[in-house]
């Protein structure tokens, strides 16, 4: 169970330009839940994920993962509990390493790395089996450098890397935003498959309302660093994109939909 309790994040505190990215946000996620988080730019979606991952320490509030208070753990200390796929496919994989080296690196996420050889024939067989599931033919290119792959292939690989070993929470940060529509839906289907197969507790940030409605078991809308709307279960399955847009406008006190057209996709 993941628990965020009254998290506030303030950038540039004490200066005239001080920005409140998260404003006393509380959220609890039970095991196996798949939450999609939506909201406009600057709503605090990415900050929320960064707080969970450890990139940003909140100014106040606590982050608790399975009864362990990790609020002040730096990113590398939380790595065993948190796995993540970034928006940019170049961030989630290491271009100058080969596919098998990337996989070996990810197998040790959050573990002590000893002085044993990173690769073995046993591990390679395991990697090949995992890569085969992607259906991209990467299983025959184990020794190839990752910077030879396309953006979509790299993102699919990042997804696999992030799920190679167990994590308490799986974070997806607009992970299809940089991909073309075809690759984007491929990566989303893969995401759903991996999440359900491995029973991952997932938080996905997305700009696509369609994605947010189609995938996951619960929907959370952020604005101004706060949760303005939440929906799950049967109520959620009846929601439409138009409902979300009007919800979004009413939370802002806006009547016109014009300014929110960008949200529709």
């Amino acid at each position: 169970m993941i628990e965020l309790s009254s998290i506030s994040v303030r950038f540039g505190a004490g200066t005239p330009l001080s920005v409140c990215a998260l404003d006393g946000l509380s959220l609890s996620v039970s095991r196996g839940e798949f939450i999609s988080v939506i909201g406009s730019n600057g709503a605090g979606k990415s900050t929320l994920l960064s707080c969970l991952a450890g990139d940003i320490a909140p100014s106040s509030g606590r982050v608790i993962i399975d009864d362990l208070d990790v609020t002040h753990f730096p990113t590398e200390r939380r790595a065993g509990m948190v796995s993540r796929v970034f928006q940019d496919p170049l961030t989630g994989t290491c271009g100058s390493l080969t596919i098998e080296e990337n996989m070996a690196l990810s197998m040790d996420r959050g573990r002590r790395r000893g002085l044993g050889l990173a690769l073995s024939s046993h591990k390679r067989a395991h990697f090949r089996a995992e890569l085969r599931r992607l259906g991209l033919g990467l299983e025959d290119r184990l020794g190839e450098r990752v910077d030879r792959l396309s953006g979509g292939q790299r993102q699919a690989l990042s997804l696999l890397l992030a799920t190679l070993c167990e994590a308490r929470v799986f974070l997806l940060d607009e992970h299809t935003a940089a991909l073309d529509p075809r690759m984007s839906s491929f990566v989303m289907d893969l995401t759903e498959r991996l999440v359900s197969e491995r029973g991952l507790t997932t938080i996905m940030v997305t700009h696509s309302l369609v994605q947010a409605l189609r995938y996951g078991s619960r929907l959370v809308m952020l604005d101004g660093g706060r949760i303005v709307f939440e929906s799950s279960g049967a109520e959620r399955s009846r929601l439409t994109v138009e409902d979300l847009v009007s919800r979004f406008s009413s939370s802002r006190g806006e009547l016109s939909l014009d300014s929110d057209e960008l949200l529709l996709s």
Partner: protein
Amino acid sequence: MSAIAFAGALELGFLYGIVAVGVFLSFRIFNFPDLTVDGSFPLGAAVAGVLLVSGWGGVLGAWFSLFLALFAGFLAGLTTAWLNQRFGILHLLASILTMMALYSINLRIMGRPNIALLSKDTIVESFPDIASLYKGPIVMLFFALLVFVALAYFLSTRQGLGFRATGANPRMALSMGVSVRRCTYLGLGISNGLVALAGALFVHLNRFADVTLGFGVIILGLAAVISGESLVRPRGIILAVLSCFVGAVLYRLVIAWALNADFLGFRASDLNFLTALLVALALIAPRLGLGTSLRARLKK
């Protein structure tokens, strides 16, 4: 080229191969342009030189001087990493600061600008006696092999993989639980330790230490790394480490040939010019496609 010149070039080639591996580690693996090496090479030389003159003779003393030099270089690397990681000083600047401070420290260690070891036992004497011109090169080859095997192995381990990810993609490394901070400290320490070891070996080989020995070490190292890379085009990490030695030996042979070829009219004082020219050429070569055409011709 005479046999003596050839042996000398090999000897220095293997020695500077160790420097090149150190530079490869900071520049290529950690993406950290580290000029500390200009200070840690003479640091190793100073430590070994002083130890040998002060009567630490014999086989044990010789080996001990190498270890101590390695350790001193490691500390120098830690200093640069500390300035950069703890206080956020730009990597290049942090390394220049350490390098500058090391100049004074080296003078303090030696007590004078240079030391001559006339009849002291060096590491070369601790190897089996072969009355050959190639004893120096063989001893240096031994150390080069040692460094090659150790580093190629280390970079293939699980820990080594974390090192390589740190330089190539720090965000990903962090998200995989690699402590970027710790890896940077350790990496720069190892890099400078190796360069200081080479400095100490230089003293054992040439029987003198001088405070100005470090001038341009970074360029010598880079020359070897870059020319090695453009010739070998390494595909894996083991070949990448090997290419440092290939580059260093080749570079020394080219320099020795250029200085020996009378028709070219070079003098020993032209060395820096030749080095700069060679590095520039090695950097330009891949753009002109020289490396590829050369390899294609070699394959025929």
